[in-house]
C-alpha cells in the first residue's frame, strides 16, 4: 500500500448480529497518523466493529478494504503454561524486544503466563500487537486492568505508532491523551 492511500476504507458497512441491527451505513476512512476513538453503550457493537475491520466477521452489507491489521482484544492468545518471553516469541521475534521494553515486560519474561495478573497479561497482549509491526492497530478496551504507569506506556506506544505513519482505533469510554476522532455507535 503506497503512501497517501488509506489504511482502512469501510463503505456502507452494516452488521446484523442475532437478528439485531448493530449499525448500518457506516463509512470510515482511516489514513496514516489517524486516531479513532470508538464509543457507545454496552452492546452497541464496538467489539463487533473491530472484529469486522479485522476480517474476522463479514459485514451484512457494505465493503471493507484494509492493509494488514493487528488486533488486541480480550483474549491474550498466549500459551498459559509457557514463560511470557517464550509465549510472545511464538508470534515472531523481529520487533519483540522493542515491544517488550515499550510495555516494561523485561522483568516478567521468565514468569509463566498463568501466574500473571490481568493487567500484566493486557500489557503482554499489547506488546504482541506492537511487535507485529502492522500499520493499523485495533485495540478493544486496552486500558482494562492497566495501572497508571502502564497507561502512560500505552499512550507512548500509541503516539509512536501514529507518529510513524500508523493508525490506531481504540474502543473505550475513557478519556485518551492526544487528539482523537470520536465515532459513536448505537445512536
Amino acid at each position: 500500500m503506497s503512501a497517501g492511500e488509506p489504511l482502512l476504507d469501510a463503505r456502507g458497512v452494516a452488521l446484523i448480529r442475532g437478528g439485531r441491527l448493530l449499525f448500518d451505513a457506516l463509512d470510515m476512512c482511516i489514513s496514516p497518523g489517524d486516531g479513532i476513538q470508538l464509543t457507545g453503550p454496552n452492546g452497541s457493537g464496538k467489539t463487533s466493529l473491530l472484529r469486522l475491520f479485522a476480517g474476522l466477521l463479514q459485514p451484512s452489507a457494505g465493503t471493507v478494504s484494509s492493509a494488514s491489521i493487528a488486533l488486541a482484544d480480550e483474549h491474550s492468545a498466549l500459551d498459559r503454561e509457557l514463560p511470557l518471553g517464550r509465549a510472545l516469541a511464538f508470534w515472531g521475534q523481529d520487533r519483540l524486544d522493542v515491544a517488550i521494553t515499550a510495555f516494561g515486560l523485561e522483568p516478567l519474561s521468565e514468569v509463566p503466563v498463568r501466574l500473571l495478573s490481568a493487567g500484566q497479561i493486557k500489557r503482554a497482549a499489547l506488546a504482541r500487537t506492537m511487535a507485529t509491526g502492522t500499520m493499523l492497530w485495533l485495540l478493544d478496551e486496552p486500558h482494562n486492568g492497566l495501572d497508571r504507569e502502564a497507561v502512560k506506556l500505552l499512550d507512548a506506544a500509541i503516539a509512536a505508532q501514529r507518529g510513524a505513519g500508523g493508525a490506531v482505533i481504540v474502543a473505550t469510554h475513557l478519556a485518551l491523551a492526544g487528539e482523537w476522532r470520536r465515532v459513536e455507535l448505537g445512536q
Partner: protein
Amino acid sequence: MIGALIRRDVRRGLAGPAWLPIAFFEVVAALLPFAIGPDARLLAAIAPGALWIAALTAALLPVERLIEPDRADGILDQLFLRGIAEESVAAAKIAAHWLTLAPLLLLAAVIASPLLALAGAPLVRTELALAVGTPALAALAVAVAALTAGLPRAGALAGLLLLPLAVPLLIFGAAASQGRSGALLLEAAVSLLLTAGSPFVAGAAIRASRT
C-alpha cells in the same frame, strides 16, 4: 509459522493429553482377556478388531483439547490476522495430533499384544494397518473438534459425529489387520480421502465458529 504451530501443538500434546489415549488403549487391551476369557485362539482372532475399536476411541479422547482452547484464547483469530488460512491451521493441527498419537499408539499396540495372544505376522499386519489408518484418525478428530468447538458437551457430540465417519476406516482397517486381500489398499484409500478432506471441513468450521 506453520512449523512453529506444529512444534507448539506437539509440545502441548506431549505435556499432557497425548498420554491419556495411550493409557486408555492399554486398559482396553488389558480388560479384554478378562471379559472374553483366556482362550488364546479366540483372543488372537478378535484382537485386531478390538485394537481398532480401542484406537478409534483413544483418538477421540483429546478431542476437546484440540481446537477449543485455541479458539477461546483467541489464538485462531491471531493466526488468521497473520494471514494463515484456517485450512492451513487445521492441517498443522492434524499433523501435530498425528505426531503425538501414531507413534505412541503403535508402541502401545506392541505392548498390548502379549495380552491378546497377538504375535508374529498378525501383529505386523495389525501394526501396518494401524500405521496406515492413524492419519485419518487424527484428521477426523481435528475435524470434529473444530465442528464442536465452543458447544456444550462437545466431547459427547464429537463422538457421535466421528463414529459414522470412521466406519469405513474401521471396516477396512480391521480387515487389513486380519490379512484379507486388498483390504490394506482400500484402507489406504479411505485414509487418504479422510486425511485430505478434513482440513477443509475443519477450516470451514473454524470460520463458522467466529462470533
